[in-house]
């Protein structure tokens, strides 16, 4: 199944990638943590949950429900999984990006210095 790049916004890409990286431990706070560690700034939880909802609507993410804990005020928790469509979308984006970068990496380094 092919995915159009337009279906995956830039921030969504990052969220999806973070969930992919976390594998079996993809809880929303941990996704935020990964993004914060790598982006170096505080992540808006509004943007995060919005992106999670959208990724779910698009079928790139799904979740299972886990039982409540006292730390969560007795509330249940969602564990996210990247679906096979999600993995495919990430791969597609990466392919496009790699093609775009071909032969220009050197220039970027030169000009950035």
């Amino acid at each position, binding site marked *: 199944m092919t995915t159009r790049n337009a279906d995956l916004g830039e921030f969504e890409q990052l969220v999806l990638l973070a969930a992919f990286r976390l594998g079996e431990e993809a*809880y*929303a*706070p941990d996704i*935020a943590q990964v993004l914060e560690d790598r982006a170096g700034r*505080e992540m*808006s*939880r*509004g*943007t995060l*949950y*919005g992106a999670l*909802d959208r990724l*779910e*609507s698009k079928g790139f993410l799904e979740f299972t*429900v886990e039982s*409540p*804990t*006292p*730390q*969560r*005020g007795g*509330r*249940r*928790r*969602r564990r996210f999984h990247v679906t096979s469509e999600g993995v495919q979308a990430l791969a597609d984006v990466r392919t496009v990006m790699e093609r775009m970068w071909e032969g220009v990496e050197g220039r970027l380094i030169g000009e950035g210095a």
Partner: protein
Amino acid sequence: MKVPRPPRLSQKLLALVLPSSLRGEAVLGDMEEEYGRLVESEGAFRARWWYRRQAWRIIGVYALPGERPADPLTLLSPSEAAHRSSALESWRQDVRHAVRILSRSPGVSALVVLALGLGIGANTAIFSAIDAVLLRPLPFVHPDRVVQIMERRASLPDRAEVQLPLPNFADYENATSFSHVAAIRPDRVYVHEGDRRPERQIVHFSSALLDVMGVRPALGRAFLPEEDRPDPEPVVVLSYAYWQNEMGGDSTVVGRPLTITHFVPGEGYRPLTLEIVGVMPEGFRLPALEIGDDYKVWADGELFLPMGLWWWGRGNRGMYALRAVAELAPGASLSRAKAEISAIARGITRNDPDRSEGLSARVIPLKEIRRAHHGTVLGVLWAASALILLVVCANVAALLLGRALARERELAVRTSLGASRGRLLRQLLVESAVLGGTGAVAGLAVAHWGTILLKRVTPGDVHGLADAGLHLEVLLFAAGVSLLTILLFGIGPAVRGTKTHRANVLRSGGRRGVAGGLRPMRWLVAGQVALSLALLVGSGLLVRSLAGLLDVDPGFDTEETIRFVLTPPPPFRKPMENEDRVAFYQAVRDRLEGVPGVRSVGAGRIALLSGGMSDGADVTPADGLPPGRRVEVDWIGILPGFLDALGTKIVRGRPFSEADVRRELQGNRMSNPWEGIPALINQSMAARFWPDADPLGKRFYWGIQDPELVEATLGSWKPGEPYPEGWDNRYPAPLPLQVVGVVRDMRSVDLTEAAPPTFYTLNAFAAFTIYVRVAGDPFAMLPGLRGAIDAVDPDIGVESAQPMSMAVTHATADTRFQAILLSLFAGLAVVMTGLGLFGVLAYAVNRRAREMAVRMSLGARRAEVSRMVVLDGLKLAVPGILAGGALAVAGLRLTSSLLYGVSPTDPLTLAAASALILGVSLGATWLPALRALRVEPMEILREE
């Protein structure tokens, strides 16, 4: 270990906005978990800060509409499936549900919205007037510290307030309790504008006035303190309107000359060239003050002149001419200012007992004056509109209660299906809010038009009313009133409706005990009866006052008399001597008497019933009573024909004759001083001066010279000669008058005031106020009469022409306005009450149909059953009437100042209003009783 709790408010808001599904639950859980971690790593303070910020960001995302993925149904519990929509969506759902329910009975809903709209609208409209007239800050730097200084004289019992003589003002100016004291004095002058010399309104005021008001001129400067003192360099400040209209808004006017012609005492009309030194800002108005019986701006000046250019009354403590405002000095209390001004007034009386007898001075904050003049009327109207709103609330609550009872079964089913009481309460309150919100919108429309209407029909110039409108304060008020209304009519029925014991209801097939569920409705209806009665009594009292006023015999004919006010030509342009004025009057009279339908023509220097004050005069009785102190009475200058034209009568003696006029014109009034000038007096003056004697031939002095000195020296003095020793050169020579006739009392100024002691003399200036009595419709004759006057002298114009019936209308306008408005309110309340009573009884009959059927089948006659219904209605109405009567007696005492000729506890009005309410109540029971008569026992019992 204690689990740290996130900030409660943010969490609540977050929970409200998030979908009430697993999704929302998970987000809330994530947030709390992260919060807990942050508390450990960063401390509670930073964690809370973080939570609040993030919560708001999530709210920002979820409060916006947008596609959200649905929770997979398999993951949801059944109750979650019921609440799957977000909290906001569930509110929206409640609203939709409410609209659906309400549109199921469009008639009742429309009635409720209409009632609420009228109630909220009436309140808001009245409040907009109160806001504009009473609540706005006065236009001063320190609005609460500005006072008006007024004088009162014991000899003038009927006049609330008298203007200040200039020397008295100068004394008050020195008071240390004030930081500023300013005088105001309007006048009229002729302004040289090219070839024209139009008459313009000017106002003299002290330099301190603008300091009190915090106003700066738009151009140039205002007056300097030295220009308050006599004879400064002549300067003028233009009003913005005069500058724009007559000077084209030219910014170089400052420094230019402006010439006026004005009257200089002792010299006559003289031109005076002023230097324009400034222009007032746009919208500048002099402050409103207590002016006679009014609170208003004394005069709208087109030009402003300094106080120092006002010649009249310099050094004359007998000339009441100025009004004064003052600002309390920092730290000075009102009581200190009052004490100081009183002490100064006592000093004035001590030094000049003759002219300042009985003088007392008053200091009253302008805020109090404003409240005193408008507070009662507006307060009564507001109370009335609040009563209306209460009646509306009670009515709507009763309606909704009835509906809630009718929905018992629906609510019981929903309860048994697991809906919590809170949920149902919310649904019912949302229904009320939808009704109330729609009612509030209708109310705003009513208020908008109501305010416009109020401004148009309010008689006279109520200062500030023109600014009334739906301003922010008014809208806030409307919102508050609407909210209160929703709570008042919504909570009761909602609480009541959800208190259902569902098992009982389901078991009894949706019927409850016969009377139990109706008790709150009965209370509400009885309350409506009480409030309506109070309103009805109030409007009844005003209607009776109006009838009383219209019934007053003013002492002259108001139906067929027309008054013409003429404008004499400018005196410097066309000088008129007394002969000319009298000749003009004779010509007008001859011509008017030639018009078919004219019965008589007269002239008198008074605008009867125009609300203005009449001319006062100091007189001293010379005969019959020991020569004593002066008394101030009214004086009216007339020309022959006046009494006939007004249809009033000479009670004793004779009217003025043409011979009197000729003799007056020859100016030989002093040739035989002891004969005196012929004067007519009214019955009231006769009773005051000569209660036990025949007034004919009696004499009195007019003037403020010492009567005893005059008595002793008058015989040897001729006009034109220097005054005898002892006379005061500043005042005119005293005139001896002799009574030739006694005239019926006329209520010349105000219909509610008994005629003051008044005397009449011949006066050539009366020629410009013509009274014509006609046979037939005065309005139809106006054009013809006007033309006849116009034809006499092209230089003399007709300023106004008014049938006296219109003057009566004008004089009764306040009472008429209040009576109409309150009657409107009362009518509305009575209709509402009737409907409410009808609704409850009809509902009761429906519910009791079974009981009635049983009774009838057990042998009760139909008449007994319908009597039962009527008695039921009376059981509601009679306690309401008793309570309303008590309410009216207690509350209406406040209205006594608005009433005329009727006591606030007038038993007849109370009885009539009670009877009306009782009648309406019986009317409201009639249909339900008929319905009860038609109950077919067998049909109903079969249904069971």
